[in-house]
């Protein structure tokens, strides 16, 4: 090649870069005068925007903007407030509800939202052919489980009837005191039948999508962004202040934080753990930290080795210093878990049975000696299993060190890739395993029912009749005060038998631009953009 051809190649290369750039030159939406535009990091790409296929928090934040449930939640304390239903009545035995739907509720294509839409949606999530992972959320409805498992073929037997276009009658299997808060869960959102029928799996694409929420889907580019705009057909759209919202699927915490610092996003999902100490000291008011409905804990396999002995489980429990763990390991303003259920769940405060520090260490040593291992001598080797992640590794190492120092026992730690780890838990091939649980709804049942003998989320081998009975009693009781007695009873049994070692109550730490208002901290971290507005920034 001559020098000239070198230049040509160089120029061509530059032109290529330029061309590719210009070809997709679409600057992000700039706020026009008076137009409110918010940019939020969703934290991950949603699995789907079909509420019956969703399974997690990454779908929740998106779905609650484009759908309106029958009964919604208050933005601050999450008590049930009217959604599509403007009023409802519960029968005395708590098994029947009659909902009056507002007549001005509309789908985004202008059609009215009717009682039949809800009946259709619930039949759809329960249909075995839909194969919805979260179908069990609808099991409180009468005959729902039978329909989902295929035992009942006649879908009209479902405990949901449209009396007329705007009256919905719901019959439950058992009185389910938390039923109203379940209605706010995406699995019970309505879907638009015609769109589902016409477009099959593609009905969630922006061009086919019909929703009934305060926002409408404008675009959805996988792993890039989802844009929503204020829906003109929403019945309460005069109260909606944000005009447009963009959701990003940034899963790299460091990138997320830098995007916030450069004002590319207004609200983050998380904060990188190593940056927490820095942001905690922040004085500008962008750091938000609030309690979250979740427990970080360790499972103990009660079917294997020394952990079969409840005295050993108790000794292990008393020999961990929860206060130190949250102060020096998790470091995110968390509170030590003194029970399994987070305090305040559905108005219930669990008995504080677990010690926060090492005040009962002498008792632990005695229990271990009684079990045949004075000062940890001859204690068989057990292992702490965690799924591969830095923070879980640190936590496991800290507990390993505490047990060694306080009880004189040697435990190993072992990490497994996520799905392998799940498999080990399911097949009970572990001794101690790191775990976490985020409540699906604001009621202790979402925590306590997990450790019933036949529950799939148990995964500890724990089986206790008295425990099962206490939880069942709480599920059948309508009166909250009476239910609290059953919860406390179950909780006491659980923490006496200790198939779990609760460590801390989850906490949400994130960054929010100071002009974002109405993004209230609440225990389930649920946010509806309808409640949010942007304050004009001075200057």
């Amino acid at each position, binding site marked *: 090649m001559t020098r000239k051809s070198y230049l040509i190649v160089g120029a061509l290369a530059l032109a290529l870069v330029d061309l590719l*750039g210009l070809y997709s030159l679409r600057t992000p939406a700039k706020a026009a005068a008076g137009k409110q535009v918010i940019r939020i990091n969703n934290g991950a790409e949603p699995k789907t925007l079909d509420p019956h296929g969703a399974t997690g928090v990454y779908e929740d934040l998106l779905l609650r903007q484009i759908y309106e449930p029958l009964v919604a939640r208050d933005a601050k304390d999450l008590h049930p407030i009217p959604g599509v239903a403007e009023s409802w009545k519960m029968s005395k035995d708590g098994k029947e509800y009659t909902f009056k739907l507002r007549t001005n509720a509309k789908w985004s294509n202008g059609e009215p939202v009717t009682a039949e839409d809800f009946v259709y949606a619930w039949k759809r999530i329960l249909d075995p052919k839909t194969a919805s*992972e979260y179908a069990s959320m609808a099991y409180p409805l009468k005959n729902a489980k039978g329909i989902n498992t295929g035992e009942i073929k006649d879908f009209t037997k479902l405990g949901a009837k449209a009396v007329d276009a705007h009256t919905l009658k719901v019959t439950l299997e058992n009185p389910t005191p938390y039923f109203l808060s379940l209605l706010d869960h995406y699995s019970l959102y309505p879907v638009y039948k015609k769109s589902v029928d016409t477009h099959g799996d593609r009905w969630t694409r922006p061009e086919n999508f019909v929703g009934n929420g305060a926002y409408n889907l404008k675009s959805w580019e996988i792993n890039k962004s989802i844009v929503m705009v204020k829906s003109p057909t929403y019945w309460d759209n005069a109260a909606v202040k944000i005009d447009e919202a963009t959701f990003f699927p940034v899963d790299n915490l460091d990138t997320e934080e830098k995007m916030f610092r450069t004002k590319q996003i207004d609200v983050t999902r998380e904060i990188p753990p190593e940056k927490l100490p820095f942001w905690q000291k922040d004085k500008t008011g962008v750091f938000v930290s609030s309690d979250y409905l979740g427990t970080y804990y360790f499972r103990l396999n009660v079917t294997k080795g020394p952990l079969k002995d409840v005295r050993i489980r108790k000794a292990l429990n008393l020999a961990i210093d929860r206060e130190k763990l949250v102060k020096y390991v998790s470091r995110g303003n968390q509170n030590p878990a003194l029970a399994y259920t987070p305090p305040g769940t559905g108005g219930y405060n669990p008995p504080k049975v677990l010690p926060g520090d090492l005040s009962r260490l002498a008792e632990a040593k005695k229990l271990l000696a009684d079990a045949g291992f004075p000062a940890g001598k001859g204690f068989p080797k057990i292992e702490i299993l965690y799924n591969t992640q830095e923070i879980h590794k640190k936590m496991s190492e800290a507990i390993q060190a505490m047990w060694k120092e306080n009880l004189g026992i040697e435990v190993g730690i072992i990490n497994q890739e996520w799905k392998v780890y799940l498999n080990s838990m399911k097949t009970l091939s572990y001794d101690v395993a790191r775990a976490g649980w985020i409540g699906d709804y604001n009621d202790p049942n979402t925590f306590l029912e997990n450790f019933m003998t036949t529950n799939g989320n148990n995964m500890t081998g724990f089986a206790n009749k008295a425990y099962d009975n206490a939880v069942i009693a709480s599920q059948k009781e309508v009166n909250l005060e009476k239910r609290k007695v059953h919860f406390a009873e179950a909780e006491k049994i659980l923490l006496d038998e200790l198939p779990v070692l609760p460590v801390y109550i989850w906490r949400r730490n994130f960054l929010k631009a100071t002009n974002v208002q109405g993004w209230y901290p609440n225990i389930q971290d649920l946010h509806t953009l309808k409640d949010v507005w942007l304050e004009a920034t001075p200057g």
Partner: protein
Amino acid sequence: MGLRYLLGRLAVMIPVFIVVVTVVFFMIRFAPGGPFDSEKQVPPDILKNLNAKYHLDESLAKQYVRYWGDLSRFDLGPSFKYANRTVNEIIAESLPVSAELGLISLVWALLIGVTAGGLAALKPNSLYDYIPMSFSILGICLPTFVIGPLLVLVFAVWGGWLPVGGWNTWQDRLLPSLTLGFAYAAYISRLTRGGLMEIRSQDFIRTARAKGLSEGKVIVKHALRGGLLPVVSYLGPAMAGIISGALVTEQIFNIPGLGRFFIQSAVNRDYTVVMGTSLLYFSLIFVANFCVDIVYVFLDPRVRYE
């Protein structure tokens, strides 16, 4: 050119392809855990519905035959994780992004790499050699997850000239392509230097010099063609890798490319996406190597395929 040789190379692809499909198909299914395992256990009845929907309740042999049937219609199946998307759609949306990022990076890599390597070879053991080669060692040692955030810190957070992440404007392309390109440029510069140094001591170069050609002409006209052979053979697999996605770079800069799917699908046990992306990767490597074989003939008159 040996047409028979090239046809032979193509024919080899068929059995290799069959082996790749088979190995990946069974390996991902034998890995512990399935696509629907999650922290919240799916009740057995619901799992039954899910398995039925995706034909996971059938015997492995039957699933295997079914996969070949779908494959023959170029249908890679639905994603298990991204419920409303097919693998074909996922690839169609994200491959162009990865390819664009890859091509721009490759241009950077070649521009920087060949220039630096050529410079070094022209004046070996001088500053023209030491400085570029020190940078190249740096490029080889520093992984993209160090260079990327470093560039972001300087140009986006401190400087405020470029965005941190995204894939909308041409400014979005700069940092990720430089990050990715730099790593490749490092290798290319060393390969260029090595190739040129070796060829400079050969007879035909001495002949060229003896004819009285200037040193620059000798390098550009005679040495570069042969000296770049190692770079060309490196480019084959590099191109496949760079185009089918660069997981780390895509994650750091939040780019909607294929690399993230390639890795995450394995973690998610999203069988169909694992299959689809692996097969695509395999095909790209094959095609890239095939092209390299052809380019070789043009660059080096000594190479003949018979």
